[in-house]
C-alpha cells in the first residue's frame, strides 16, 4: 500500500474511517483507508497530485454531521477521504459589493455569524443542517430560498479556485487575474463573475459533479445585505393553484426575497409542530419575505406588501401573519437557524426525500399524479410533505417530496415506486442522489452519459475523483 502524502494531517483510526463508510440513507460502502485534512488549497492540490501519482481514489468532503445522500460513501476499495471541513477561513467580505470569499469548510451553522460584522448574510437552502458546508451546498446546486436573486443555477457563486482531478489549480470566473489573491483584493478586484474566463466555465462543470471532477478550495459567494426591515407573510389556500399562481407572479415581479410554496405537512415540519397539527394548517402556503436593505426600507416594504396583497387577492390566496401561534416572521428567523438535527427527522426520527426539477406551470399535474400514486399504494396513510422552490427567478422549480417516518419503517421500495412514477410523469432528476441515482439517467438519450464521460476525461483523466459516482460512468467503465 502506498504511503500517504507527507505533511498533510491524516487519520487512519478505524472509528474515523468507518464513519465515512456509511450515511444516514444510502447504507454502507467500503471504509476509506485514511482521512486527510488539508489546511489550505495548496495542500489540497498536493493531495490530488499524490492521488494521481498513486492512482488513489479521493472522496472530497466539506460538511460535518450526518450525511445522507450517499455521495461521500466510497464506491471503491482503498479510497481516501479529503476532509476540508477544517478549512473555515473567511478570506474576505465586502458589504459594498455584497460578496465574500470563503473556504470550503465554512458551514451554514457559522456563516451568518462570520458575515454579520460585515453587514452581510449568506443565501441559504431550506433549513440546512448546521454542519453543511456552504460551498458544498452551492456546488450541489441545492436551491436557495431567495428566488429573486437566483438568476441562474450557478448562483450564488462568483469566482472560484478549483483543483481539477488532474491536479491543476484553476482560477475561475473573475478570480482568473494577475497576481496573488491578496494582491487582487488590494487592487479592488472582488471576483464577482462566475463564468469564464475565456471559453470554459469550470465552476459550472464542477457543480453537480458530486466530487467526481475536482475539489473547490475557496469561492467568492454572493451575499445578502442584512436587511433594515424585513416582513414575512403566509399566503394560504386550500388548492395549490392559487398559491402557485400568486408565488409565480410575485417572483416574476421580484417583490419578495424568500419565496416558496409548501403543503401543510411540510409546513408543520418547518414550524417544528407535531405531525398531528398539520391538519389544522392551510392545505397550501406560499411563504414570502419582503426586505428593505438600504433605501427608505419601510416604504419599500410597504409598497411591496401592498402589491403582494393585490396579487394574493387576484389569485384567491388569503394572507395570514400567524399560523397556529407561529408568526411568519418567526418562521423567517427559524429559516436562518441551522438545526443540529435535520428538521425532517424531528417528527419520527427518519425521512425519505425525493427532489427534481419541473416547470412551475405544470407542477400541479405532477402533484396530482404523485397523489394518485400515493393514494393507491402502501404509503397511503403516511404524511408526505411538498416543497416547491422557484429557481432562475421563477423559470422552473425544485419540487421536493418528504416523508417523515420511523427509523425502522420498511418504506424504501414504495418510495422508489413513487420516484419511478414521478419520472414517468416528467420529473427531471438533475441531481442524481439517493433513489434518483439511477433513475436520473433512465430517460437520457445518451447525451448526459457522453458529456459526463467527456468531463471526466478532460478534468480527471486518471479517474481519481470519487470514481463510479454516476451510474453512467460505471457503464462507460
Amino acid at each position, binding site marked *: 500500500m502506498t504511503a500517504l502524502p507527507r505533511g498533510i494531517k491524516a487519520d487512519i483510526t478505524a472509528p474515523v474511517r468507518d464513519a465515512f463508510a456509511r450515511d444516514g440513507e444510502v447504507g454502507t460502502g467500503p471504509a476509506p483507508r485514511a482521512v486527510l485534512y488539508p489546511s489550505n488549497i495548496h495542500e489540497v492540490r498536493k493531495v490530488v497530485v499524490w492521488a494521481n501519482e498513486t492512482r488513489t481514489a479521493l472522496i472530497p468532503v466539506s460538511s460535518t454531521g450526518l450525511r445522507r445522500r450517499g455521495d461521500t460513501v466510497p464506491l471503491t476499495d482503498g479510497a481516501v477521504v479529503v476532509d476540508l471541513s477544517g478549512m473555515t477561513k473567511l478570506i474576505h467580505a465586502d458589504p459594498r459589493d455584497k460578496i465574500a470569499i470563503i473556504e470550503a469548510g465554512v458551514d451554514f451553522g457559522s456563516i451568518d455569524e462570520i458575515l454579520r460584522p460585515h453587514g452581510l448574510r449568506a443565501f441559504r437552502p431550506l433549513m440546512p443542517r448546521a454542519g453543511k458546508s456552504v460551498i458544498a451546498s452551492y456546488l450541489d446546486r441545492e436551491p436557495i430560498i431567495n428566488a429573486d436573486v437566483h438568476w441562474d443555477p450557478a448562483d450564488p457563486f462568483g469566482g472560484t479556485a478549483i483543483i481539477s482531478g488532474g491536479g491543476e489549480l484553476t482560477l475561475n470566473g473573475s478570480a482568473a487575474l494577475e497576481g496573488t489573491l491578496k494582491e487582487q483584493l488590494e487592487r*479592488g478586484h472582488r471576483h464577482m463573475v462566475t463564468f469564464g474566463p*475565456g471559453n470554459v466555465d469550470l465552476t459550472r462543470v464542477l457543480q453537480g459533479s458530486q466530487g467526481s471532477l475536482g475539489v473547490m478550495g475557496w469561492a467568492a459567494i454572493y451575499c445578502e445585505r442584512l436587511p433594515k426591515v424585513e416582513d414575512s407573510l403566509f399566503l394560504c389556500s386550500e388548492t395549490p393553484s392559487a398559491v402557485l399562481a400568486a408565488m409565480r407572479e410575485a417572483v416574476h415581479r421580484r417583490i419578495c426575497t424568500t419565496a416558496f410554496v409548501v403543503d401543510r405537512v411540510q409546513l408543520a415540519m418547518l414550524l417544528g409542530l407535531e405531525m398531528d397539527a398539520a391538519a389544522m394548517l392551510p392545505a397550501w402556503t406560499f411563504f414570502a419575505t419582503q426586505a428593505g436593505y438600504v433605501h427608505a426600507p419601510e416604504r419599500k416594504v410597504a409598497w411591496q406588501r401592498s402589491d403582494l396583497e393585490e396579487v394574493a387577492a387576484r389569485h384567491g390566496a388569503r394572507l395570514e401573519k400567524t399560523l397556529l401561534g407561529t408568526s411568519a416572521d418567526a418562521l423567517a428567523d427559524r429559516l436562518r437557524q441551522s438545526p443540529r438535527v435535520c428538521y425532517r427527522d424531528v417528527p419520527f426520527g427518519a425521512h425519505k426525500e425525493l427532489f427534481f426539477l419541473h416547470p412551475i406551470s405544470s407542477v400541479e399535474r405532477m402533484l396530482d399524479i404523485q397523489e394518485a400514486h400515493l393514494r393507491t399504494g402502501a404509503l397511503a396513510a403516511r404524511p408526505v410533505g411538498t416543497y416547491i422552490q422557484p429557481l432562475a427567478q421563477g*423559470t422552473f422549480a425544485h419540487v421536493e417530496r418528504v416523508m417523515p417516518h420511523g427509523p425502522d419503517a420498511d418504506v424504501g421500495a414504495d418510495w422508489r415506486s413513487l420516484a419511478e412514477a414521478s419520472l414517468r410523469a416528467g420529473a427531471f432528476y438533475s441531481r442524481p442522489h439517493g433513489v434518483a441515482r439511477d433513475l436520473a439517467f433512465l430517460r437520457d438519450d445518451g447525451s448526459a452519459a457522453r458529456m459526463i464521460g467527456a468531463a471526466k476525461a478532460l478534468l480527471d483523466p486518471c479517474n481519481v475523483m470519487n470514481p463510479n459516482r454516476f451510474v453512467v460512468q460505471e457503464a462507460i467503465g
Partner: protein
Amino acid sequence: MAAKTGRHRLTLSPQARSELETILGARYVTDDPALMSGYAWNTGVGKIPSGDKFTSIWPIAVVLPATTEEVAAVVKCCKRHGLSFRPHSTGYGSMGCVTSPDSICIDLRRMDHLEILPDDRMAVIGPYATANQLQAEARKHGLTCHVVGAGPAHSPLASATSLIGVGITSQFTSANMRNMLAWEWVTPEGEIIRGGSAASDLGWYASDGPGPGTRGLLRGFFGGGGGIGVFTRIGIKLFPINQKGEMQTVGQVPQLRSVLPAHTALLHALFPDYEAQRAATFDLLQDDVCTVLLRMPPNHIGWTLTETNAEFVRRTRDGTLPEPAQLHNGASWTILIASRSAAEHRWRDETVRDIVIRHGGHFAVLQQEEEELLYHNFATSQYVPRVLRASGGITTSFGVLDSFHFLPKAVEMGEMMLAKDSAPGGALCEGSPDEQWIWPHEGRYMWGENIIHFDATSEASRAAGALALIGHFAAQWKDPVGMTGLLVGPIQDVTGPRIGKAPAFARKVKTYFDKDDRSKTKEYVIPNMPPLVEKILPALRPVFSNQMVLRAMSKMLGKNGM
C-alpha cells in the same frame, strides 16, 4: 476533397456536392459566387477589415439545413470529405465569415423555431429566431428578451451559445450565457447531443444535469465562436416588463421614439466626477432601485439625439447639444425606472433622485422627444446603428467585468488608449477619446467596453484601430481593470496560465470533440498547439507589450484585416 480555382477559392468536389444535395436538396446547396459574396464581406462592423470589402477567404459552399438531423448530416459529410465548416446564424457583423477556404458555411436561416412559454417566462428558439422577433413575441405576454448591444437583428441563440452575450439592459436582463437554459448541439463530428432537461426529453427549461453542468465545457465567457460545432436549439429565459403588447412608437426612422409606459421614468444623472459617480453607483445598485443603468460616452448620446452627422457636427460646434451630450459630462448615468404601481414608482423615483443629489449629482433637463428617443433605444437596443454611424468602422476593446470600484479607472484607461489617435490629425475617427460604455449586471458588477471608431477605407486608420485593440491587452496585463472578457484566440495563450487554465482547458475540449479542427474559426482557441509553444507564449508577453512590436502587428492587421 476540393480543387483550387483562384487565389482564395476552392471548389467543391462533385461527390461532396452530390452528397450535400442528397442531404438537403439541390436548392439548399450553392457555390454560386453571386450568392456567396454575401457570406464573404468584412466592411469593418465588429472586426478590422482589410482594404477590400470582401474577405480574402470565401466559403467553398453555402448550405441551408432545416433540421438538426440535416445539420448533423452536413457535418458528417464535411468529415468524410476532409472539409471544414462554420456555423452562421444571422451573420450580423463579420464574425460569421469562414476562416479557411475549405470551409462550408452552414447558414441556419431555415431553423427559425420560436415558441414562447409565457407562464414559465421562457422561450424555445432556433438559430434564426432574431432578437427582434423574439422580443416582439415575448412582449405580447408582458415579457422581453435580453437584447445584446449588437441590436435587434442578431440571433439570441448564437449570442447565448457562442458569442459574448452582454447588453445594455443587463442590470435586469442579465447576460445570455446566464439566460441559456437547455440546449441542443451538433458536435464537430456530427453527433447530436442535448443538455439539461432536453436530454431526457423533458422540455427546454433546465440547463444543467443530470449531474455536472457540462455546458461549462462549451460555454464560458466568450463562447466558442463557431469553433466547437453547431448549436441548433435552446431554451432561453425571458424577463417580465411593465408593458404588454406593442411599444407605442412615434416619429420616423432614424429617429424613432417610444412613448414611456405608465409608471416609467427615464432620467439622466450627471456627476461632478467619476469618484462621485462610483460612490453613487454603489448606492444605486442596492435594493434593485433602478431597472436599467447605462453610461454612454457623451458623443454617443449626441449621435443618438441628432438625426444626421451634419446636425451632430453643427450642434457640437455651436454648443447646442443637450447637457448629456456635452463632452465634460462623461460622469453620468442614463437611468430607466420601470415600475408597475404608483407607490412602487414613487419609491424608486424619489430614491434615485435622493441618491444622485446626495452624491453631488444633478439631473439633465431632457425634452420629451429626447427622453422618448433614449427610451426607444433602451428598450430595443437599437443604439448600434445610431452611434456607430460616425465612422462606418468599429470594433471594441476591454470588455471588463468587476466591481464598480474600477469605474473611474476604466474610463481613464479607455481614454488613454484612444487619446492620441482620436485627436485632430490622429488616425482614428476624430472626436473624444471617451468611448467607454458601462453598465451593471444583475445589480452587482460592472461591464466596461471601449469602442474604437476607425475609417474602414484607410489603412492607417485600420492600423490605429488594431493598435488600440491589441494595445489594451498589454495595458491590462500591467494593470488589470478586471477580468478581460474579450480574450479570444492567440491572445488568451499569451495572457497565459497566470490567469487560470482556461485556454489550455478549452484546447483540451476542442481536441476531445474536434481533433481534426473541422469546426473552424479564429474566435476560439488555437487548436492542437504543441505543449512547448503553449508554455513559451506567455513568456513572450514582454515582447507583445513592446510598443514597436504592437505597432508592427497593428500595421499588419490594418493591411490584411483580422
